[in-house]
């Protein structure tokens, strides 16, 4: 089983420096990409079927294709790596950032070449202190060895790269909120259109991509689209970093073929549930994905298959609910998070999420009232796609709407018994 993304990563060890990275074949893809035209790079990546690993799953090649190209295109163009990993339950980008920073830099050089970007930013969450240190060191090495700066590896192409460490807030992970944060503003979302590909940072064409997505690029360029598709068990190419947290025997993170099943990840890699506990449900891809239950254990974890059963692959890091953890309490925790992180820009989000969080908290504390379930259901409708400015609120109510479906009896018990049965 090939594990291109994590092959150089030694847990707890130092990341490879530039020389060590080159020794493992690093920066060969950069040299190759610099000999290719942007259109050729774009074509390979389109053929590879690479889709965004940040949660939305947008096809990378298609995202690039909206960027104005050629001599008439506005400059500078920007490439932004979204390294603002803040989706609760998600811990995959940290591994790539800390474990192999040159892989990300190389992926960014290739992406920048594909869209003819002049300046690249890594938008890094402020708490990722070790990532910041290692990225800064790697970027300095890359400059010193002419992989960044003017006339990269004698190609005539240039790229500057900077790390921006953020000052917090989940909204910064939202594409247009991130752009505002990078411009030194509050991270409210922007209206689309214009899309960032046309008018992003400071009004210039901009591409925003997740860490894991970018890290795939060197391998696609080096080995080709067919190889990349062959890594996967499904129609979505590549490998995927899958994780599991919660009360499993061995919580962790594994690079597996795209399309590994929930059961395989849960039982084979995470070692199954801790002794004495039973599996009740799973958020397959972070906090803002719908619960799946025991009926779904054999679902392949890829973009299409998870969607077919009513949830999303999201970030691919699963949060497991066991039978001794209260599903209502879990929803109360989740909606508290989303309500707190709402930027307040649109009404369903700031009002609806706060209301839902308050109802859930009351229910947990034994103050649930008849009609509360219906109130919660209304809020999931109120915050649904099409009613809000960005994707925060629709994502926020995904775990709640599915919990109301799968764990309804638990919500009812809270109201009837006027207490949380798990306390």
């Amino acid at each position, binding site marked *: 089983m090939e594990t291109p993304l994590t092959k150089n990563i030694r847990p707890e060890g130092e990341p490879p420096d530039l020389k060590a990275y080159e020794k493992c074949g690093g920066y060969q893809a950069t040299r190759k990409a610099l000999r290719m035209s942007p259109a050729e790079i774009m074509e390979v990546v389109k053929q590879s079927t690479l889709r965004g690993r940040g949660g939305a799953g947008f096809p990378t090649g298609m995202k690039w294709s909206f960027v104005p190209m050629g001599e008439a295109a506005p400059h500078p163009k920007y490439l932004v790596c979204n390294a603002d990993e803040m989706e609760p*339950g998600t*811990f995959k980008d940290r591994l790539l950032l800390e474990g192999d920073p040159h892989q990300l830099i190389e992926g960014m050089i290739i992406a920048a070449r594909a869209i003819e970007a002049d300046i690249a*930013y890594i938008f890094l969450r402020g708490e990722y202190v070790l990532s910041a240190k290692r990225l800064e060191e790697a970027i300095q090495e890359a400059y010193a060895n002419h992989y960044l700066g003017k006339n990269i590896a004698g190609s005539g192409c240039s790229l500057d790269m900077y790390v921006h460490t953020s000052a917090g*807030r989940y909204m910064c992970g939202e594409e247009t909120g991130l752009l505002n944060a990078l411009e*030194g503003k509050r991270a409210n979302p922007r209206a689309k259109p214009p899309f960032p590909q046309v008018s992003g940072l400071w009004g210039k064409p901009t591409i925003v991509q997740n860490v894991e997505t970018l890290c795939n690029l060197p391998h696609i360029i080096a080995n080709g689209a067919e190889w990349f598709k062959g890594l996967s068990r499904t129609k979505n190419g590549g490998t995927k970093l899958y994780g599991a*947290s919660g009360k499993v025997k061995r*919580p962790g993170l594994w690079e597996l073929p795209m399309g590994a099943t929930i059961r395989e990840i849960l039982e084979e890699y995470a070692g199954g549930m801790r002794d004495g506990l039973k599996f009740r449900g799973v958020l397959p891809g972070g906090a803002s994905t719908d619960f799946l239950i025991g009926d779904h254990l054999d679902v392949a974890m890829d973009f299409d298959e998870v969607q077919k059963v009513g949830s999303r692959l999201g970030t691919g890091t699963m949060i497991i609910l066991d039978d001794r*953890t209260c599903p209502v309490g879990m929803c109360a925790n989740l909606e508290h*998070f989303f309500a707190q*992180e709402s930027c307040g820009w649109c009404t369903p989000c700031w009002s609806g999420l706060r209301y839902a969080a308050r109802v859930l908290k009351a229910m947990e504390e034994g103050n649930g009232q008849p009609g509360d379930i219906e109130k919660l259901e209304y809020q999931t409708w109120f915050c649904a796609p099409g009613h809000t400015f960005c994707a925060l609120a629709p994502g926020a109510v995904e775990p709640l709407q599915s919990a109301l479906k799968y764990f309804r009896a638990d919500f009812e018990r809270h109201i009837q018994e006027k207490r949380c049965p798990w306390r």
Partner: protein
Amino acid sequence: MLSAEEQAEIQTEMAHYPDKKSVCIDAMKIVQSHRGWVSDENLRDIAEYLGMSADELDGVATFYNLIFRKPVGRHVVMVCDSVSCWIMGYNRVCEQLTSLLGIQLGETTADKRFTLLPIVCLGACDDAPVMMIDEDLHRDLDPQKLDSVLDQYK
């Protein structure tokens, strides 16, 4: 007054952006790294340095939870209250921390040694529950051993 060192650090960051205002979040973080927090006076100085009004800058500052607009203790304890840590025992960790420190979330100890704050998911969910103290991540927290962790910070 911003110190020469602060100004030099802000200038370095400023070179990464096309205009002065865009560096304002970095600038506040730089000042905070030297002074612990961003006072009204610091805020005015930064704003003036970047050609902004203090109110405009405060409008940015108040959005971001890692910009401290109130004094904090010598060490800031940020305990993760997001879902994986909640499942793995956040409540017991938080109860133990508030009891050991004698303060609630959002407060600072009388000796100004610690400020206790909740933080969202720290991206180390396979080692939950976790917290950060200053720049250090502490994983797999055991409520019984928190006092020895706190002891490392004087």
